[in-house]
């Protein structure tokens, strides 16, 4: 029986280790993939590593992760050790109380702790960013350090410090020379736990960060919506670093122990620590070296904070802008206007934002934007008349258009009957023929637009019964059609032909159609949303001059061409639009690239506080219904 158990155990262990390492191995293999796919390996290449090294964003995230972890570990180890020593001499009631308080971050769900920190920083108007992330990390690391140091202190002879002081040591010397050496193992393991917790943290960092400061976790979370093999490359790099450090920690002492049989515990315990620190230091210097380079440029050393949609900038525009001006750009991405609004309304400072029409109207009415300085803006003549002087900002006093387009249905011509589309319009999303084969888009405004248009109402309706009807339409859809509710994931998935139908923004459709010729784009005759997104400058922008320079750059032919040809959205720059749509252009003749004109049912969103709130609430209910379906 015992033997049988052993071999069962061996098999279990083998399967389990395979399970643990399978995704890691898969990731490493696909980081060397030539193609973009995450499922088929097409050939060996280092292109994703090159991409990673060139992407300032990723290296910055790596730097933030490790620098925050190192500082937080150091501070929390020192503070935690001192506090633990102090507490051991405090009254019992104090000790128990602090223990209870320390349990808070360890015993609470992490998201609750995270929200606590976020509310704290916002209530006291501390600007969220690197410092707040660091403070939060220190705060949740200290309890772990104390947890591992305290038992070691308890095990000490309480008279030790007294004895040292009787022999003439000052309290400080007694502490450093007598107590600390005795509890070093506890301190080291506490520090290691703190470091692990900090490096791995996502939830807390995600809620307390701001101004585009990202660690690795936040970066993966915000970037993971589209296939991006660079994530595999940077992950592989992390795997290599961590494995090296761990091997050093574990192997070096083994070798040392073998070499000199007589025990010298202290040395052994310090070694792994030193090894980890050395590895980390090497990583830091490598990462830091990647910055640098200085010439005589107008905005040398300044920083632009850009808050833009995900997948909304070209491959080179930020780098080109940095090279031309000497400034550096920190970009943060959002998924929806609403998400962006919450941050902005809570006083976070950005220089340039790219919201949509109705949101610009709201930001203007709430006095969150500053007027553009006409002296500094030289790009208006380059833009198409179609997107200038729109009702949300007559005269373009606040905004310079960036992209524009429509909302429609992307469909797989091989799976969808075009007659269904023509006859049913948006109601095709209720056609059970396509059950389990559709994507909805996680945008409250455009989901309600779809439902309202399907029902023949105006998308700007303020009639609550019509809104309720639209809500019922959406609930019926999520309950009977098994849709997947996505955001940018739709782009790669439709390009791969994974589903038959999806609600999509025209620009994403353009990209999908350019990648996969089986895909089509349809705008229902019952009308759709003609939207435009424009660049604006926040009232609390730190560097409005640089913001103006960026706006001009992004609207110029070079900037706009890079943006539009890379992401597929229709440029506001007339010449770029003509080039890309015209003969030989990247998007020659694609109906999604040229926004429709002349359908009287098409509308532009108008901001209305009350309907916004209703729609917002109802949409989160729709998602809950989808989840419970």
């Amino acid at each position, binding site marked *: 029986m015992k033997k049988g158990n052993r071999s069962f155990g061996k098999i279990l262990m083998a399967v389990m280790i395979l399970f*643990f390492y399978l995704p890691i191995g898969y990731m490493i293999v696909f980081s060397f993939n030539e193609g973009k796919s995450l499922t088929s390996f097409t050939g060996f290449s280092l292109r994703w590593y090159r991409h990673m090294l060139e992407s300032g964003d990723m290296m910055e995230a790596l730097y933030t992760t490790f620098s925050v972890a190192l500082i937080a570990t150091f501070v929390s180890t020192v503070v935690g050790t001192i506090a633990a020593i102090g507490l051991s001499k405090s009254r019992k009631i104090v000790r128990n109380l602090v223990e209870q308080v320390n349990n808070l971050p360890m015993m609470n769900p992490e998201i609750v702790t995270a929200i606590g920190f976020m509310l*704290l920083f916002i209530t006291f108007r501390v600007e969220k960013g690197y410092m707040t992330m660091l403070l939060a990390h220190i705060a949740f690391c200290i309890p772990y350090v104390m947890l591992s140091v305290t038992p070691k202190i308890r095990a000490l002879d309480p008279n030790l410090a007294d004895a040292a002081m009787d022999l003439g040591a000052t309290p400080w010397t007694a502490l450093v020379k007598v107590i600390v050496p005795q509890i070093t193992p506890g301190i080291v393991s506490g520090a290691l736990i703190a470091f692990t917790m900090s490096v*791995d943290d*996502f939830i807390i960092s995600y809620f307390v960060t701001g101004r585009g400061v990202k660690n690795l976790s936040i970066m993966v*979370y915000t970037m993971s919506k589209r296939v991006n093999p660079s994530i595999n490359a940077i992950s592989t790099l992390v795997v290599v670093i961590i494995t090296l450090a*761990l091997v050093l920690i574990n192997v070096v002492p083994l070798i040392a122990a073998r070499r000199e049989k007589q025990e010298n515990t202290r040395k052994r315990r310090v070694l792994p620590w030193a090894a980890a620190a050395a590895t980390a230091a090497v990583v830091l210097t490598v990462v830091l070296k990647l910055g640098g380079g200085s010439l005589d440029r107008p905005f040398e050393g300044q920083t632009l904070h850009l808050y833009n949609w995900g997948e909304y900038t070209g491959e080179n525009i930020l780098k080109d802008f940095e090279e031309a001006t000497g400034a550096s750009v920190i970009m943060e991405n959002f998924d929806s206007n609403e998400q962006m609004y919450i941050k902005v309304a809570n006083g976070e400072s950005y220089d340039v934002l790219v919201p949509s029409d109705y949101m610009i109207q709201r930001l203007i009415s709430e006095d969150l934007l500053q007027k553009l300085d006409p002296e500094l803006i030289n790009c208006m003549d380059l833009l198409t008349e179609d997107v200038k002087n729109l009702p949300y900002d007559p005269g373009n006093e606040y905004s310079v258009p960036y992209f524009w387009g429509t909302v429609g249905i992307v469909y797989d011509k091989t799976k969808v009957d075009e007659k269904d589309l023509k006859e049913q319009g948006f109601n095709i999303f209720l056609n059970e023929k396509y059950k389990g084969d559709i994507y909805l888009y996680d945008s409250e405004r455009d989901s309600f637009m779809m439902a309202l248009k399907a029902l023949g109402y105006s998308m700007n309706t303020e009639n609550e019964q019509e809104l309720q009807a639209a809500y019922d339409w959406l609930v019926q859809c999520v309950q009977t059609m098994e849709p997947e509710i996505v955001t940018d994931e739709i782009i790669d998935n439709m390009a791969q032909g994974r589903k038959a139908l999806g609600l999509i923004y025209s620009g994403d459709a353009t990209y999908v159609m350019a990648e996969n010729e089986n895909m089509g784009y349809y705008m229902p005759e019952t009308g759709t949303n003609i939207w435009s997104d424009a660049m604006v400058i926040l009232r609390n922008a730190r560097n409005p001059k640089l913001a103006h320079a960026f706006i001009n750059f992004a609207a110029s032919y070079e900037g706009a061409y890079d943006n539009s040809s890379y992401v597929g959205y229709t440029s506001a720059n007339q010449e770029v639009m003509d080039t890309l749509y015209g003969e030989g252009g990247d998007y020659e003749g694609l109906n999604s690239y040229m926004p429709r004109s002349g359908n009287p049912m098409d509308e532009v969103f108008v901001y209305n506080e009350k309907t916004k709130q209703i729609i917002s609430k109802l949409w989160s209910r729709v*998602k809950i219904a989808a*989840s419970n379906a």
Partner: protein
Amino acid sequence: MKRFSQLALPYIAWAVLMLVLPMGLIAVYSFMEHGNSVIPFSFTLEHYVTFFTDPDFLLILWRSIWIAVKTTLLCLLLGYPAAYFIARSGEKVQNILILCITIPMWINMLVRTYAWIGLLSEGGLIQQILSFFGLGDVELLYTEGAVLLGMVYNFLPFMILQIQTSLSKMDNSLLEASADLGATPRETFRRVTLPLSLPGVINGITLVFLPAVSSFFIPKLLGGGQYFLIGNMIENQFITVGEWNFGSAISMIMAVIMMLLMMLVRKVEVRNQGGKEE
């Protein structure tokens, strides 16, 4: 001597500011009518009433707890034999196996979860293997199964390590004594090994259940946008809907439920230790 106790004072101040106050703020926000500013404060129970009177919200809460329970059970089922095997191995093998289990834990959770997307997606490795067995058409990614898999994958090491620690602390002579006194291996396991490993099991359950119930990036990455758990609901309230008061109320509800569960677990632990001493 007494002077050392003053060393704790700065930390006490810090802990009040950074650990107690945030929880207090969540409580205050959750009882506040509307808006994101604490002054002026107007008391309401509205958010709690909304939550508890809505079947949809309760269903989400229930589903979050249920999937966390399933995760915990699976981790226990897989983790216990593994931990037992490790603890029974020789010291060298033990160290290597523990290292094998620890290394993935050092690699960012998000990154490891992201890797599953490629494995599970259509045409990915897992589906290819399944289709080899004639099960090709199963949809894997963006299902509850994927979420469960992601959770077990991320949290199983906690369980193994906790149980292994308590098993390896056990004195081997106890097993010998039990055998000498005529117990079958099965009896020995049930009456000696299992009770002695219980503290590890309980710690493991805590360490798995707690993050599983509140996780929001695993459901989001592997379950898709239409898969909502209570953690996603909180995130959504704070990041996109902007109803911070309601979000705070959900956070409070979750914190209280967790606290109650933890107290329950502690009680089991205490009772068990009491039994041991008899």
